């Protein structure tokens, strides 16, 4: 969720720069569209990992995932 906030902040920056520096070439908005798409793909994979972790560790407390520690 925090990373979605960061993606949104970056997108606002892109669009704002696109409006004030190059208003006719909408480069910032197109890049923001790509960032939204990649964020969606990454959220999907991340949440799939969370589901698998829940299935294997019976809970999603990150401190319990330590079976590779020695």
């Amino acid at each position, binding site marked *: *969720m925090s990373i979605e906030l960061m993606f*949104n902040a970056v997108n606002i920056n892109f669009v704002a720069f*696109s409006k004030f520096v190059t208003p006719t070439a*909408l480069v910032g908005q197109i890049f923001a*569209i790509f960032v939204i798409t990649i964020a*969606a793909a990454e959220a999907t994979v991340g949440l799939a990992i969370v589901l*698998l972790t829940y299935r294997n560790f019976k809970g*999603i407390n990150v401190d319990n995932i330590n079976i590779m520690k020695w």
Partner: protein
Amino acid sequence: MVVSMKNIFHSALFLVLCFFSVAGIYVLLSAEFLAAVQVLIYVGAITILMIFAIMLTARLYSAQIKQSNEQVIPGLIIVGALLVITIFTLSKTAWKLSSESSQTQTVASIGKLLMTTYVLPFEIVSVVLLSALIGAIIIARRD
């Protein structure tokens, strides 16, 4: 409010509020297509995905969950320093503001640009989406 609630479902709802606010900012920056895309994709798809994952995995409220660790004070100091540096840099830069007026038909322009100048990232992003779809299905498969 997203990162400080104890109930994780409330965090997700505040995230939805954030997404709607960002869409409003896009409308103010004369990017209407991006505002519509933001609401559709972020609120419509990603929030639903997160709420599915929350409902399927977490115990929603637990009194033992700490939402902050013991390093709040050094974090605040570093963030404050970063804020001062950023404001100083922003106020001293000579931005090259363009005096042209912005486009009125953003949807048509974005469509044209996506199909002519930016067609390669467009195709690559579609491949990335396909791979993310296949990867998520394989990761979360029950066998």
